[in-house]
């Protein structure tokens, strides 16, 4: 086992995919000799040549459209959108073609392509560099939406995404790029694509998180444990397909649930999860399902992002509101009345 960063794990995943399958191609803006602005494609052009990893004109719709045509032609393109908000020009291609071509053609054409998007904030990025855009994609039928939270998951989820017969929007939490773990990238272990995983077990409440919010949830669980509250942390890994079973099983055991997302809250992924949990676990719930999210504001400037991002305190405040204290309150009121 060696210490590996998430950026290195993603780079290794691309390298291994390029090596194992000659249909795999990597292209986008600055992904060639520069290795991408986050260096995720570092060294790939040198090792595999301009034919396999290449810079394109600066045109996101064109990049995704090119990937559509090349996937129709038998290749497996992995394209990079440089930042979350810079992927918006490609949204028509993604929503109207990437997501729909299989369905439009009754399965006669498929698009095994991956759109990698560094997303979310926490790195002091200026405007247009920190959006959490996952809900747009998750809301679009026909797209798989993946976001890793650990180094090993970054490697294996990207390998799975590239091997998948369907298009995958692969959202990389950019503030975790430099997170380091002792990781064995060559041992797959049991990590089926489409399954969530409990990163920490606990009996008192379930924290559901994904991508950049998973480390926040784990820290919150660590702090809560000091107060004797055992929080379970479920890392979704894939937003689509969504693993209802793992989430439901956990909440039915704990009876309480907080869903965490960094994105603005309104009409977000956490809202969908909260609805699904209460639909499936109503009789097991001792408290309303709560959401911990960013505020419904455009992403703040760097000096103010700390005020927006859901951190450990906001998570613990939500845990406090899970009505662990109903009984004492009632007693207190009864005493006052007497």
């Amino acid at each position, binding site marked *: 086992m060696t210490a590996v960063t998430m950026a290195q794990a993603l780079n290794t995943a691309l390298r291994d995919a390029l090596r194992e399958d000659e249909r795999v191609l990597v292209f986008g803006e600055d992904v060639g000799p520069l290795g991408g602005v986050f260096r995720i494609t570092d060294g790939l052009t040198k090792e595999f040549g301009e034919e396999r990893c290449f810079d394109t004109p600066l045109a996101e719709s*064109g990049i995704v459209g090119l990937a559509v045509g090349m996937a129709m032609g038998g290749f497996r393109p992995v394209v990079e959108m440089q930042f979350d908000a810079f992927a918006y020009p490609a949204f028509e291609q993604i929503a109207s073609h990437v997501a729909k*071509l299989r369905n439009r053609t009754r399965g006669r054409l498929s698009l095994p392509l991956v759109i990698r998007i560094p997303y979310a904030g926490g790195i002091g990025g200026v405007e247009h560099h920190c959006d959490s855009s996952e809900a747009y994609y998750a809301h679009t039928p026909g797209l798989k939406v993946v976001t890793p939270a650990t180094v090993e998951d970054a490697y294996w989820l990207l390998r799975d995404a590239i091997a998948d017969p369907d298009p995958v929007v692969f959202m990389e939490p950019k503030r975790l790029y430099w997170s380091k773990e002792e990781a064995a990238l060559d041992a797959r272990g049991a990590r089926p694509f489409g399954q969530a995983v409990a990163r920490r077990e606990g009996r008192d409440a379930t924290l559901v998180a994904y991508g950049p919010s998973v480390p926040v949830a784990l820290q919150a669980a660590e702090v809560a444990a000091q107060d004797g509250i055992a929080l379970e942390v479920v890392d979704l890994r894939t937003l689509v397909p969504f693993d209802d079973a793992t989430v439901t099983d956990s909440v039915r055991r704990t009876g309480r649930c907080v869903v965490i997302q960094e994105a603005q809250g309104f009409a977000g992924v956490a809202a969908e999860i909260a609805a699904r949990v209460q639909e499936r676990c109503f009789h097991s719930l001792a408290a309303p399902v709560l959401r911990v999210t960013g505020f419904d504001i455009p992403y703040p400037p760097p000096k103010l992002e700390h005020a927006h991002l859901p951190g450990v305190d906001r998570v613990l405040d939500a845990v406090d509101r899970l009505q662990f204290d109903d009984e004492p309150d009632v007693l207190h009121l009864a005493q006052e009345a007497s």
Partner: protein
Amino acid sequence: MSVKALRQAVDSLLPSLVPVRFAAENGTAVKSPGAYTAPSDELLREAYRRMILGRRFDTQATALTKQGRLAVYPSSRGQEACQIAGVLALREDDWLFPTYRDSVALVSRGIDPVEVLTLLQGGWHCGYDPAATRVAPQCTPLATQTIHAVGMAEALRRKGEDSIAMAFIGDGGTSEGDFHEALNSAAVLRAPVVFLVQNNQYAISVPLAKQTVAPALAYKGIGYGVRSEQVDGNDLVAMLSVLTAAVEHVRSGQGPFLVEAHTYRMDAHTNADDATRYRQAAEVEKWESADPVARLETYLRGRGVIGDEDVEAARTAAEAFAAQVRAGMNAETEADPFELFDHVFAEPTPQLREQRALLASELHAQED
């Protein structure tokens, strides 16, 4: 680069000052059609048969909208020369990326007319097999297909096939960003792709003058380093000559080629549109006299390429084809609602399986 070399480089990209034309509007041969080689008589006879068939198919499809057999039909009438020349310039192993207005091209490519009309009849979004026919689904979002054609062309080149891609687009579509991204990417990659702009003068109701002030749409090519040409789009002979040269250009690895065909949409945007709200009858009548089918017939008769027998045979075949289209479209087909869940992903997600079961119980309850 010397000024002379630069001049040559620029000139090599620019279109002819006036559209290339072999047959005048009255069907007589023009004196000097320029540098392009006329197609063989045999190919022109085939083109004529397809023009008669294509026109008949188009009027049949319009008639089917009136009978409620088609939800909507965007007519190709007036644009047959563009579409049929496009198809004839391609080999079977070349790829075509059509728009919703290119049904005549698809029929000419040999796709079953019922499968062509599936989209407009409302049974599914695409009725034919794109992989088997090498024809992409008819594209509705404007210009988005042009960049797919570039990607496909690049894929074909990388696989060592000498097949190419051709994208159809309209005049309105040239204002969309994807058209420009496609031209630029194709040029940078030297992708073997031909862009055919059918400039039919209207984007629904908006005339060309409100779309661009460029001298011609063909001039959109030079800014990207793309070789360009403009053609009389109602002259099948000119269309086929230029497109054959364009296909040869891209097949031989010289990079993409942009062709603008000056034509006219004789009918409204679709049967649901009312063209009298935005254009004058006199304008339409002017273009009636430039009709591509009549012009080709006069031109070929005048040169002795076809005679009465050929005309009669083509019309008989077209009538038989129209009857086949009517029969196919009048056959009641059952659409399977459960298929709605089958092709979202290669394997349905658990949620899609649940929703499929929900629909099954709804339909079951309705039966009771």
